């Protein structure tokens, strides 16, 4: 690990990351040195889509392939032992990073796959799989699944599909004009009929942090299971899943400075133990006969086939990197950058989709540096193109959240988002470039 950045979590007056610390962090990310569009320095403001990777993560993957590559959890040779150890150490690192036990972390190809594992476990249980233990996952017509209008498609479509397969009914918590969840009718939405309450920790469009404690309490009151999409929170703020009290959570490696192709499903131990498998095959079994099969305990029960070992090792390394950086400091850095980004609301013709301030529902951190916006008279694609011409990379489109965009009456937005390596200077460059967009298109 090359970083020297440390932020004392107990020092509330500490600035997010000092200039020196930030420079050290940036030096860890080789890609940030490159230029784009004819020699312009890269201003990468698309970390909510995917983050860049520090050298230590890249090295961890290379080192695995150069020194340890072998099939894990089988084979009696030394390489197999070393590969298994690296794989399981990575699981331990990721578990520790999010406040979970090792056996509660299941490797998945990504967060989308992780959420689908839970949705299909409900489906399989409803078909009678999993025996008596899986009773909690059995759905009947009239049962309800509650999501929110702010969800990424990954935490919406699997639940729509589960409802279509089982006859359960999908309901959703609406979004207020300020982009936060509207909990006015929460008690009417989350009722004795509710079996699952699935919601995002931090919106990938508005940056708003959901009131997890309130939602978990509502679900617990009626015996519903909670599923947290933690893709945007885990990379950018301290997350302790035991403390949050959610039943399941999903997050991806590539958004938290790790590789693509790997993510994690968290499930409370007793739930994973009771849950029937979804993807079946090798490595997830105990005894297989021609007639039937018994399954391994979790997490292996949910890890069929050869796993993405090198990527898991990379994700473990990314978790350690962030942990050493200190997530309290990372969150303060995010908060500072969010405030800088939100100044775009002062540019004539720019409208931010999402909360403009820290007026959250009692959350300690109420919004992160994910800021979506529209520019009067200029389509998001055209906004993105003009920014790109100055070397500034933002996301344009619906960000896999079409219902949320529909809620705000827009088809597409542009979005700027930050990570640990983002600087205030970059955000200032973004603001200045954005201020010139309407003039370029002659928008009145």
């Amino acid at each position, binding site marked *: 690990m090359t970083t020297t950045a440390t932020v004392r979590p107990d020092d509330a007056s500490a600035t997010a990351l000092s200039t020196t610390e930030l420079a050290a962090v940036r030096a860890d990310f080789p890609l940030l040195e490159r230029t784009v*569009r*004819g020699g312009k320095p890269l201003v990468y403001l698309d970390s909510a889509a995917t983050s860049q990777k520090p050298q230590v993560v890249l090295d961890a993957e290379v080192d695995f392939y150069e020194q340890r590559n072998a099939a894990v959890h089988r084979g009696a040779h030394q390489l197999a032992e070393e590969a298994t150890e690296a794989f399981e150490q990575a699981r331990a690192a990721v578990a520790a990073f999010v406040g979970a036990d090792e056996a509660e972390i299941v490797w998945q190809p990504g967060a989308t796959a992780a959420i689908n594992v839970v949705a299909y476990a409900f489906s399989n249980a409803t078909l009678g799989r999993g025996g008596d233990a899986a009773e909690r996952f059995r759905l009947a017509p009239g049962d309800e699944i509650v999501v929110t209008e702010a969800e990424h498609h990954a935490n919406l479509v699997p639940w729509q599909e589960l409802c279509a397969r089982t006859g359960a009914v999908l309901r959703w918590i609406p979004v207020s004009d300020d982009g936060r969840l509207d909990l006015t009718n929460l008690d009417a939405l989350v009722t004795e009929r509710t079996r699952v309450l699935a919601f995002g920790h931090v919106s990938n469009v508005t940056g708003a942090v959901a009131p997890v404690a309130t939602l978990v309490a509502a679900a617990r009151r009626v015996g519903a299971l909670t599923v947290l999409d933690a893709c945007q929170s885990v990379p950018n703020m301290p997350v302790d899943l035991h403390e949050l009290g959610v039943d399941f959570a999903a997050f991806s490696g590539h958004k938290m400075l790790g590789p693509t192709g790997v993510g994690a499903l968290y499930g409370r131990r007793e739930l994973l133990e009771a849950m029937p498998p979804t993807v079946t095959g090798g490595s997830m079994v105990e005894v297989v006969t021609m007639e039937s099969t018994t399954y391994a305990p979790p997490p292996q029960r949910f890890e069929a086939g050869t796993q993405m070992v090198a990527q898991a090792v990379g994700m473990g390394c990314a978790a350690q990197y962030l942990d050493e950086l200190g997530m309290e400091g990372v969150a303060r850095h995010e908060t500072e950058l969010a405030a800088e980004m939100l100044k775009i609301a002062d540019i004539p013709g720019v409208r931010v989709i999402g909360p403009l301030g820290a007026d959250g529902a009692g959350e300690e951190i109420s919004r992160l540096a994910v800021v979506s916006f529209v520019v009067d008279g*200029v*389509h*998001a*694609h*055209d906004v993105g*193109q*003009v920014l790109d*011409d100055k070397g500034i990379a933002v996301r*344009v*489109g*619906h960000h896999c959240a*079409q219902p949320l*965009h529909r809620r705000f009456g827009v*088809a*597409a937005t542009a979005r700027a988002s930050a990570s640990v390596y983002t600087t205030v200077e970059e955000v200032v460059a973004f603001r200045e470039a954005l201020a010139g967009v309407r003039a*370029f*298109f*002659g928008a009145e």
Partner: protein
Amino acid sequence: MSTLEQMYQQVILDHAKRPVGHGLVDLAGSHGHLAGESHQVNPTCGDEVTLRVDVTPEGTVAGVSWEGQGCSISQASVSVMTSLVKGADLAEVARLDGLFHDLMSSRGKGLDDDDAEDALGDATAFTGVSQYPARIKCALLGWAALKDSLARSGALATS
């Protein structure tokens, strides 16, 4: 001219602001005319267009009308296309469609063919777009809608 200015030519910005054929017109479908409608969506960005075409019994495009939302490239492209194909026969429409696709595959080089560029007229302004792989689909959205609406009208089967 910067590559950005090459993409956003004035003719494109003008068409985006004052599009030709914008506003759906009721399909004729009488006097032996064939009419077709198509709705095309670009799922990655949400751009969409609904386009109606009216073809004479002799196989000439009598009119094109459309509604849509999207970036300046997609909207301007439908507009330019509408001016270009009105009055053209189906063989000419097919030729223009082929030429425009070739232009979009030219990586900013253009067609290097004066006859072809004359035929495309204002549509050659989209040459700069072909330097940006992510934007080519924006320029092609309207052409896909035209092709599909012609197929739905039945005009292609009878010609």
